[in-house]
């Protein structure tokens, strides 16, 4: 097995970003993934949260603002190359419409979800699509009205003839439209909506880039705005595909279904990782390793017994709040961070894992994404920002 310049463990947003950044710098990159990562779950809008007044252990303290800005630019560029235009920057707050009709503000937003102009529209159409699961136009309109009480809302029904033998999700509909957008475009045209109107639809305009949206939007005068949705999320998959396209073009070696079970180390140096295959264990040698295995959701951190979280590959020390009172809040949706979500690995400024005394454990292992500890990324709305910025830094060190 040839030695990689860098091995990236994990194919979620952080892993893909790290691979793309490393590849862009002419490195020989290997990605080892197990499972699909969290992008199919995600809205694909990237939140940075606040970069000010951060506690000492906050990942942004180690990542730095420079990497945040560079990461944002890099992602915009990768997406644009796949005809998936994004807008925004680290400090921007661009509104998108959620599937339940709330507005959410994100830093980087795919153009198809940009709801900035909603305030200037006169009439807002909300599409209800026959047979499509998980999109409830009435609920969405009722809740969105609270932000725009003086606007006219109208629920419009479309039939894409999707009723089949099983439930139809946004992902199915997006697949259908990828193959043929025109029937939906025709239905939208029949609305005769004007430039003063917006049409809110579930995220079904294709599974790759903006191609389907371009076909439909050029025929319609009103702005079409896609919402978020319950998983699986076509916008998340579009972003995943944009990255994959770039990695393929850059000859990155990408291994799916490859579970890394441990590292090969020599003192403070990682020399490779061991992958478990059906028949045997296989060593992948590397000069540098990026750990992007995620947090509890993706299995980058596990916890079988109370107060004993583990990082299963390198057995790195895991920071966590001790004791039941600090582990979680009485409210699920709380006004303060959830302790368990702050669980993760602490690092130095080079994103090298450190122990409780601050001692660096490995000099060429960099921890990025959701397995970084020290903050509740969901509460802060910083999950995407930390993922891409730490990945950017980890890949450029």
């Amino acid at each position, binding site marked *: 097995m040839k030695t990689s310049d860098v091995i990236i463990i994990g194919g979620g947003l952080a892993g893909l970003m790290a691979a793309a950044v490393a590849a862009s710098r002419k490195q020989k990159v290997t990605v080892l993934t197990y499972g699909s990562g*969290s992008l199919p*779950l*995600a*809205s694909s809008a990237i*939140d940075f949260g*606040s970069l000010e007044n951060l506690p000492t252990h906050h990942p942004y303290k180690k990542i730095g603002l420079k990497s945040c800005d560079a990461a944002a630019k890099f992602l915009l560029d990768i997406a644009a190359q796949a005809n998936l235009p994004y807008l925004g920057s680290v400090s921007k*707050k661009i*509104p998108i419409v*959620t*599937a*339940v009709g*709330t*507005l*959410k*503000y994100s830093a980087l937003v795919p153009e198809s979800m940009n709801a900035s102009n909603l305030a200037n529209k006169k009439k807002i159409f909300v599409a209800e699509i*026959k*047979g499509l*699961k*998980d999109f*409830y136009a*009435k*609920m969405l309109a*009722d*809740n969105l009205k609270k932000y725009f009480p003086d606007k006219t809302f109208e629920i419009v029904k479309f039939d894409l003839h999707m*009723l089949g033998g099983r*439930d139809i999700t946004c992902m199915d509909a997006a697949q259908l439209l990828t193959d043929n957008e025109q029937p939906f475009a025709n239905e939208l045209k029949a609305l005769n909506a004007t430039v003063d109107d917006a049409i809110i639809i579930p995220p079904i305009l294709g599974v790759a880039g903006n191609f389907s949206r371009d076909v439909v939007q050029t025929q319609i005068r009103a702005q079409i705005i896609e919402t*978020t*949705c*319950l*998983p699986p*999320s076509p916008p998340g998959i579009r972003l995943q595909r944009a990255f994959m396209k770039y990695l393929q073009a850059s000859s990155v070696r990408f291994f799916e279904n490859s579970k890394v079970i441990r590292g090969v180390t020599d003192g403070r140096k990682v020399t490779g990782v061991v992958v478990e295959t059906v028949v045997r264990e296989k060593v992948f040698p590397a000069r540098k390793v990026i750990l992007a295995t995620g*947090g*509890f*959701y993706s*299995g980058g951190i*596990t*916890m*079988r*017994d*109370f107060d004993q979280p583990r990082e299963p590959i390198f057995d790195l020390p895991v920071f966590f709040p001790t004791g*039941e009172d600090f*582990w*979680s809040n*009485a*409210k*699920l*949706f709380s006004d303060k961070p*959830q302790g*368990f*979500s702050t669980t993760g690995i602490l690092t130095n400024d080079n994103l090298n894992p450190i122990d409780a005394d601050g001692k660096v454990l490995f000099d060429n292992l960099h921890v990025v994404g959701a397995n970084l500890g020290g903050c509740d990324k*969901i*509460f802060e*709305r910083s*999950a995407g920002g930390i993922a891409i910025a730490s990945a950017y830094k980890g890949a450029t060190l």
Partner: protein
Amino acid sequence: MEKTTVVVIGGGATGLGILRDLSMRGVKALLVEKNDLVNGASSRYHGLLHSGGRYAVKDQEAAKECIIENQIMRKIGKSCVEPCGGMFTRLDIDDPAYEELWVKGCADSGIEATPITLDEAFRLEPRLSRKHVKSAYLVPDAAVDGFRMAWQLIDSSKRYGGQVKTYTEVIGFDSVNGELRGVKVRNQFTGETYEIGCDIAVNAAGGWAAFVGKLAGVEIGVQPDKGTLIAFNQRIVNHVVNRLHKSSDGDIFVPHGSITILGTSSMSVPDPEDTSTSRAEVESLLKIGEQTFEDLRDFRILRTFAGSRPLYIPPGGAVGRSASRGFAIVDHAQDGLKGLFTIVGGKFTTYRLMAEKMCNQICAKLGNNTPCRTAEEPLVEEVSQADIDRAKKFFPSYGVKLAATRLGVDRFKKVVARLESDPESRELVCECENVTRAEVEEICKDDTSFIVNDVRRRTRIGMGTCQGNFCALRAAAIFADMGVESTAKDSLTRMEEFLQGRWKGIRPVLLGRTLRETEMTRSIYELSMNLTEVSPQ
């Protein structure tokens, strides 16, 4: 003023049993419940239909009642009972002398306890500890679904004219010259108060019986005794597995469909509303449980929950595990209030018998000689094979029978007709429990459906593997579509309330794969849906 003959206070198994019994005997009766039905010990329990083996040494009278009622329940509540059978296992650390007492106790109480070889025990229950289990017996325990039993009791009562008002709290009694005239109640949603005229009222409020008694100025000896239980996401056992030792904490496993419930602890609490659970309680149950099943901690815990047994404490009586599981009926004529009765104590397995005895006294007062028929007549008619076959075209086949037993004959017919004519109604609102949109909408129309949790208890949405991750959004939207507005809450609040309800049981067991589910819940509802809205900074 609204009038009835008997007001039954409390929508647990006992109250519902009384409502059914009275209605079947032709007595006009109305049940009021301050929350949703079976909100107390009638659902916050193991779901164990006792063979009586548990009481064979300590309380043979209770043991005898159990085995008789066990047989009756299998007959009248066929679709609520899973006849999985039970096993008693003695471990190496348990007293062998107790085993002898127990075998004799079972024989004396009429409970068939069949000794089996250890090989046979390990064949039937492969996960039993080879190291610790020393002897095993089979008994006729079974699993029983408290929710389903409750809705079927209601359906049965309604057929005979019985009425139910949920979210209706008793706030006082009206009497003239020591004779009861009516019960004052408050609608929990609107705050409206009114009186229901009646000749007789039965306080069947379980753990809350003392509070209800206080409203009438009478003292009731009831001690709420909190029991904590754990629900695992797998069927760890095939039988109800009991420890063969002096009854103690955490020594019973009950399989229900695809899950297993382990419990319980026993702790006197001042307030029956206290259904809190803690990591310490969970740890202590796991420590005991893993003596019988060594790999217990490798199974995913879905959630934990707690309920209060309403233990009857006669003046000067014992509390906790030593307290009797028997029940008592008090005629408050002795306290100077004619027409008020209290029934307290007992256990789920014998609710029917308790109701029968209570109703015998009421009927004697009313001069009604109709005999009790609750032991003979099945709770609900069985759904016909023809209807099941029709439904199979649209349901995942695993879900058909479950839906049929949940819905009962009439509603099931309506739902199947809807599925036939309206393909959109076939979508699954809850994939974990196979609940269709048609079913959820049908239950939304019910006169006891006010909040999403009410629909959860009837349909099982949100009770499975994902604990509401997907169906919280869907159910709230369906509520909005259907215009269920009794609580005047918006869809976002409904979603939050529903998920918060799930969170309560998840929080003390937040480890292992449950952490993963919770991160997913938060990602969906906080990040993708911005349910807890964050304004631009």
